[in-house]
């Protein structure tokens, strides 16, 4: 079997988050080197604080000041930190119950090795030098052997509160288009031929091929060359510039049924004023030097296709 294409696909985006009153107070307090918990009606103190009681579903707003030292309740050694984690040297993931809190906070513990970590050990917050009102204001935890300090009540009100954060999300994939699309892409790229696959059951020709027929659910393998010319089945005129596309507006975005294909693919129409494009227009691909796909399609000059010849493809 010929080699199947593969490439990295990185999906990332800086999402914004509105915090609501409780998270706003929590993160603003971190900026001031203060850790806040929230008190439930039955007197438990939850850290990190939550907006709604996980037991009773009550709305919570009674913020209290807890310690910056605490006790490790459980842990796991992380020998190989990954991108974006709190420390870039090996560290322990720890759940820390801060003094005066009833629940534990997940964070990183800076320790020389797993032998230096144990459940029940005392730890202390190491604050980040620059604090912005984010969980990363706690750089990490470090071992501590001082006695638990007395903790005061804090009203949770600060000047210039943090009301939103930016949460960077990133996923790393290896993407492969699979056997059928690889063959399609290579024939286009190397020979400028559009090669689809025919379903052995319904006989429909799919371009690009998917390796299986979506209606019959059977594998496809019989290759069928289609095009290069085709018919505009329908289209729209795009008048707003897309962010990542370097195309002058207005332009025509069309559904094009290549001759011999049983469903339309999508492409841009050029070589004709945008307001003269019509359903049924006969078109052919126009390639640029290094394109993997046709740059656009232009009129062939043939008479328009009759509506009846493509209406089933709409």
């Amino acid at each position, binding site marked *: 079997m010929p080699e199947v*294409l593969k490439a990295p696909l990185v999906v990332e985006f800086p999402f914004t988050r509105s915090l609501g009153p409780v998270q706003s107070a929590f993160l603003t307090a971190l900026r001031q080197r203060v850790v806040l918990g929230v008190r439930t009606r039955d007197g438990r103190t939850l850290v990190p604080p939550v*907006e709604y009681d996980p037991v*009773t579903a009550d709305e919570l707003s009674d913020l209290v000041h807890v310690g910056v030292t605490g006790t490790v309740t459980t842990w796991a050694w992380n020998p190989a930190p990954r991108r974006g984690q709190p420390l870039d040297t090996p560290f322990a993931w720890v759940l820390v119950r801060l003094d005066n809190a009833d629940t534990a906070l997940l964070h990183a513990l800076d320790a020389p090795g797993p032998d230096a970590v144990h459940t029940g050990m005392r730890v202390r917050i190491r604050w980040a030098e620059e604090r912005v009102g984010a969980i990363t204001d706690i750089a990490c935890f470090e071992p501590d052997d001082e006695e638990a300090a007395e903790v005061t009540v804090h009203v949770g009100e600060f000047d210039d509160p943090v*009301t*939103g954060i930016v949460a960077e999300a990133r996923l790393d994939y290896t993407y492969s288009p699979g056997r059928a699309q690889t063959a399609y892409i290579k024939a286009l790229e190397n020979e400028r031929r559009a090669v689809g696959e025919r379903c052995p059951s319904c006989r429909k020709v799919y371009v690009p091929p998917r390796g299986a027929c979506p209606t019959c659910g059977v594998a496809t393998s019989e290759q069928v060359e289609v095009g290069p010319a085709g018919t505009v089945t329908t289209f729209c*005129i795009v008048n707003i510039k897309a962010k990542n596309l370097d195309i002058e507006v207005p332009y025509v975005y069309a559904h094009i049924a290549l001759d011999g294909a049983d469903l339309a693919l999508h492409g841009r129409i050029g070589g004709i004023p945008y307001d003269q494009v019509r359903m049924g227009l006969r078109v052919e691909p126009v390639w640029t030097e290094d394109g993997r796909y046709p740059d656009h399609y232009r009129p062939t000059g043939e008479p328009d296709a009759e509506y009846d010849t493509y209406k089933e493809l709409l």
Partner: protein
Amino acid sequence: MSKEPVAVVGIGQTKHVAARRDVSIAGLVREAARRALDDAELTWADIDAVVIGKAPDFFEGVMMPELYLADALGAVGKPMLRVHTAGSVGGSTALVAANLVAARVHGTVLTLAFEKQSESNAMWGLSLPIPFQQPLLAGAGGFFAPHVRAYMRRTGAPDTVGSLVAYKDRRNALKNPYAHLHEHDITLEKVQASPMLWDPIRYSETCPSSDGACAMVLTDRAGAARAPRPPAWMLGGAMRSEPTLFAGKDAVSPQAGKDCAADVYRQAGISDPRRDIDAVEMYVPFSWYEPMWLENLGFADEGEGWKLTEAGVTELDGDLPVNMSGGVLSTNPIGASGMIRFAEAALQARGQAGEHQVDGARRVLGHAYGGGSQFFSMWLVGSQPPDA
């Protein structure tokens, strides 16, 4: 054994707006859920299970939001499910919840759908830069606009019909305090003068991007008997799906939509939807989808849907009002939009839609679709229980 009748006894929505920066996602869903419970005069303890829905995770970047939202929705110690069917998800979520009651798995279920689009990027989430593939050449409107042109060609509809729908829905929204867009100075001329974005779709014929949530309390016959306000009864509900693109797909009037409607009508004993159904809340993100769905749902013969719109039949005071709430064209927190259709249909059947109430609405259809006309979900609700 027959199914348990399902009643809607509580409905809650947030005031839909462009950005709710004052609340977290948890705070947003809580607000809608609390209003639905208040409407039903119930507490968290009365709820047996929670079923939620939203659009794809990457719209907002919260993976599996159902985990994080369990506290806010009082779901701790109870079953909690999340449903995921793209833009139709609000409808499918309600149906999954309804089926739990119909099957007597649970007596009372809270169902909710939401989207906080101000914290998301739906356009980006839908067009990932897939290696080796040609970049998408147009946005969401560009995806649907060619289908609208195909509809116009197929039916000979005059090109003014889209603006009539937008003008109607925006005026209806003025009577709905929860609607996002309240364009007090809207005129037909303004709609028709708005910029052509994806010809044949104009700016004013597209939906806004909203933050919002919608919740319903569904219950069994015993629960309905205790309800403080009149319930809406589910008379039929169905979902259908088909691939977004396949050879033979009718993108103008998808088979899955026809089959879904036919199933609902069969369950409800509807032989002539145009005669037997009093009003419709349908999923119309681009105005031309009103005449298209009128045909797809069997309210008009093929090629005739636009004539109902043009004749004013779908106006609030028409013979078959459509999108009395202002519809998706006036409010679109994507994941919630389907549930808002279902909830607004139920509000009508309960006689509680306020200023946008259709007098004497007894049977009302709620409709949702999503994913490039891939998923369909619908329910028919009525003022009387199914066996009455």
